């Protein structure tokens, strides 16, 4: 279970990106975070695995305070939490397989990396993950040679080999076309339902939110302004939705 308590983030520039945000996520939930551009979605997700240092507040993950961890502890926690990025963030010059293998870095002794060495078992695991996202035949291509949708599938495979208990996805489909968006969201849904991985995902498209969320929270100017179940959202009219989300809300079909 993930508990976020009174989370506040003030950037060095003085921007208050999150203000006193508290919520809880049960294991196995598919939580969607909605909010206008600049409302603090990315900041929230990145605070959870401390890519960003929160200014105040606590984040409890199975009763461990993530905000208080030292380097070694953080490393152990991070390997249990996958992260999928809007811009994929693959290392373009490395082969697809190596990109997926980086998901194992939290488990192998650091000095192995001097030789780019991974045990055979990890390599098999990485190939399996690629198989699951349908990219086994691309394993030895450079990541830069893939299309956007393929890159995001590699991103998911990378998170998968971490063997994560939770997956954070920051607008995973925002740079993809509608068909691809559904296929990627489908992967996330399968992980959620078949493996019971908790998913926290920020989304822009209204119908994706309605289709996939089991629970939804809404942010506005860094404050939590909405909390509800997936059903709440599904029964909302577009007008109500726009009240939380703002005029930018849109349907995938346009």
């Amino acid at each position: 279970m993930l508990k976020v308590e009174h989370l506040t983030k003030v950037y060095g520039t003085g921007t208050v990106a999150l203000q006193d945000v508290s919520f809880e996520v049960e294991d196995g939930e598919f939580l969607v975070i909605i909010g206008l551009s600049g409302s603090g979605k990315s900041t929230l997700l990145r605070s959870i695995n401390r890519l960003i240092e929160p200014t105040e507040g606590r984040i409890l993950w199975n009763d461990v305070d993530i905000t208080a961890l030292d380097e070694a502890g953080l490393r152990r926690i991070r390997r249990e939490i996958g992260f999928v990025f809007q811009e994929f963030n693959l290392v373009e010059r490395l082969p697809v397989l190596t990109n997926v293998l980086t998901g194992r870095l939290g488990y192998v002794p650091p000095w192995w990396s001097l030789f780019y060495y991974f045990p055979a078992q990890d390599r098999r695991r990485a190939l399996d993950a690629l198989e699951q996202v349908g990219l086994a035949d691309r394993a030895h291509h450079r990541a830069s040679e893939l299309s956007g949708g393929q890159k995001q599938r590699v991103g998911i495979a990378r998170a998968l080999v971490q063997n994560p208990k939770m997956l954070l996805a920051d607008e995973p489909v925002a740079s993809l076309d509608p068909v691809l968006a559904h296929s990627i969201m489908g992967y996330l849904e399968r992980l959620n339902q078949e493996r019971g991985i908790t998913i926290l995902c920020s989304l822009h498209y209204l119908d994706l939110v309605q289709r996939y969320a089991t629970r939804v929270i809404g942010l506005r100017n860094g404050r939590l302004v909405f909390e509800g179940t997936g059903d709440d959202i599904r029964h909302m009219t577009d007008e109500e939705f726009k009240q939380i989300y703002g005029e930018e809300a849109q349907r995938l079909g346009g």
Partner: protein
Amino acid sequence: MRIGKRLLAAVLSLLVPGLGHLLVGRVRRGLYIALGTGVLAGLTVFTAAQRARFPEEVYGLSAQVLLRLGLMAAFVWAALWLVYGALGRAVLRADAEAAELMAQLYTPGFVALGVLFFSLAGPRLLQTVLPADGERLLYGTILLIMGVLLALLWWWAARDAWQTAADAEPGWGGFIALVLVGTLVLGTRIVGIDLPKAIREYRETERILGDIFWPWRAAFDYEATELRATALVQAPCPPDATPPPVNQPQEGQPWVVVEPTCGDLSVRDSKGKLQYGTLLHIRGGGFVPGKIVKIKWENPIGNEFTPRGLGPTEIEVGPDGTFESELYIPDVVIPSFAQGPQIHKLHAVQPGALRFTGQLSREMKLALQAMLESIMIGLMATFTGMLWAVPLSFLAARNLTFTLRTSPQGLVGGVLGLVLGGAVGLQAAGRIADALGGLDAAPVSTAIVHFVLVTGAAVLGFRWLSRGLDALTQRMPPLVTDAVRYIGFALIGAALGWPLGLGYAHGILGIAWDPRDAAAIAPTLARVGAGLGALAWLGLARRWGQQGVVPIGQWIYTITRTILNVVRSIEPLIWGLVGVIWVGLGPFAGFIALTIHTVAALGKLYSEAIESIHPGPIEAVQSTGANRLQTIMFAVLPQVLPHFTAYSLYRWDINVRMSTVIGLVGGGGIGFLLIQWIRQVQYEHAGLAVWLIALTVSTLDFVSATIRKKIV
């Protein structure tokens, strides 16, 4: 604005340009005017003083001149600071922007005052500030022009103050034009530009330039096919001597017959007038008809020369291959140890065609060897430089280093660990190296063992003790934590302050003081330095104790960058001098020089490449739980490797170019040959070296550019 104030402003600016502007609140404008006018006036005075000092217009930059220049600059700064700081503050209390500008002026002003103060500390230095007796300033045309220009500038400043006082916004055109013209006029004088001289003396240079531009005859060996016949002559000719026999003409080969074969030398008397010796009759044959035969004389110790003013020395051979001529025996200076009759030789020489042998000349071979040496110096320096630059560049990259932080207690532990680890590593390395046979028997392993053990132990020591002390103090009551922090910081501060105190005593006071006095006060100053350092760091301990984190990443970044920048801004040629002093003449010195410069240059380029990579992959890899090393290996290196390769190639090409020059200061390679040949006036050989350098450098330039284009 009232006319009185405008007038006052104009008059003030006429006294000190820009002062009037201050009165009417135009500080910035006034400052620019003061600076421009001041610099130009200073340069004029300097030029005038130079002319007085060096009437033959030799502009040497002696230490004294430099010192004087520095003092003059310091004085101008100090004056500006005083005037603008004190007056401006009183006049312009309200103008916030102006006040800020003033604050910016304070710092350099302070430095300037400090410099002034220290230089006044020594009476010897004081002397150099004041011109010696009887020195007059010589005013030439240039100074006249400068006088007019400066007068115009002063007038412009006054007029400008008058106008700005009325809230007008006059342009800068006149000011810029005056300053520019003044600078150019002075520049002509200082650089010593002399167009007529350049044109007059070009003709004499042509032949030499020809040798340098097309030196390729000197690259090969030629065989001379000359015809030569020799006759022996004895001098002087005492009655009892037996002169050499008279030659007989011989068929089928060149011959020369000289009669008599015995005679007296010509003599040059004390007035330098020549008294002829015996006249020789010369007949020769067997030479190529129609061509010239040259007569040469060879003295008893084997020196051959052309005898001048004693008879024809170039005779045309007749159609049958013979010639006849006459020659007085030359005045040959006989070494004093040679007594009695000596045998001289007369040669009849007919130079023939030079035959191209196809062999490279000795000089060409030397030049090729030296060129190879240069290329290797460049290669080795680039490679070694890369090895050092890569790790340094990681420290000098903002995006990697700034994330390094520690708690104050961690810093205390870390410094302790660094020192302890380093000491332990040094000890261990020393033992192991001794066991291996020491520096001379096993230099490479000794170096590697030292490097690995000392840096490894220091780094591990830093890590372990930093974390250890941090973890330990977290479990202790706050009092203990505070104590550790304050004591630790005080010790660090003292350790840093101690050498500063010593350095101040020897390095700064030692300049003006008697070195013995400086040495005597050194221990006291070291203690004072340590005390001040400890105090300062106690302050830091308080501040960081509240914040809880020490940005050591920023320090590491700043320190690394500063060192890289300083080292890089010193030219390789100067490092070459250091290398030569260190290990003596030769390629090793050049290698050291280029390596040092390469580390700094590549370190900067590499670190900038690192700073410009996409942060996304770094975050992605970090979020999988990767530590720093793994992040570098998987997210940073793949992104920067192409840039690193390109920069290294680029540097190799620079290094080969530099290594051809580094020889000029004794760093081995082709530059060394080049400067030798130039000094020996062997311009043709120098030309060979220049050509080889040009060919090599342009080839490398092309190759490295091509490869680089492929990579990036």
